[in-house]
């Protein structure tokens, strides 16, 4: 029983560590921001889930069943899409460059035309570009 639980903890820790590492490799190697956002928001969140699951197993083996690590997992799973949404809105607002293979030029241009008119310094340029085309 003890040995089996130890194998399970080691498996979940290794799974989580690999996913966190893959997410960070994606963050540092992808060519543009819209691709770079995929790594940390998906792979890293899943890796954190793996590490926290291993931790739940370990502390349930040591003492009573403890599930308050699940709180961090749920919190991360709730907040990761929200922060990704805010980041992608910021990127559309700042009109970041996308490489040619990144799809969705229509959304990119729509994102450039939206935004708050009072604080957007880049708005006149975006209007000029859309007016020319």
């Amino acid at each position: 029983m003890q040995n089996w639980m130890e194998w399970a903890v080691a498996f979940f820790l290794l799974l989580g560590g690999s996913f966190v590492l893959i997410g960070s490799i994606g963050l540092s190697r992808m060519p543009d921001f819209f691709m770079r956002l995929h790594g940390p928001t998906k792979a890293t969140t899943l890796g954190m889930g793996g590490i926290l699951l291993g931790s739940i197993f370990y502390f349930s083996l040591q003492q009573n069943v403890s599930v308050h690590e699940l709180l961090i997992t749920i919190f991360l799973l709730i907040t990761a899409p929200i922060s990704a949404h805010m980041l992608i809105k910021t990127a559309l607002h700042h009109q970041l460059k996308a490489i040619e293979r990144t799809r969705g030029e229509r959304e990119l241009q729509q994102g450039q035309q939206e935004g708050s008119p009072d604080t957007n310094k880049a708005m006149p340029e975006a209007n000029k570009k859309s007016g020319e085309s």
Partner: protein
Amino acid sequence: MLEQVIFLVFGMISLALLLNLWRLLIGPSLPDRILALDTMFINSIALIILYGLLMGSPLYFEAALLIAMLGFVSTVAVCKFLLRGDIIE
């Protein structure tokens, strides 16, 4: 065996933190740097949880939960500031 695995995962997460630091330093735009900082927050939560596992004490989860909330709030605040020019309208 578990101790060696924990040290191996420590190494992997440290490597991930170094890659995030590289993106934070060279990041061509501001959202890149915010994203790198957010990922560093999440990876530091993983480091704290692994340290708590190594020490065998469940006391470190409070700190991890606090850092998770702090990272989320700071990311959203900086994004809101870049998006609207104001945090609370």
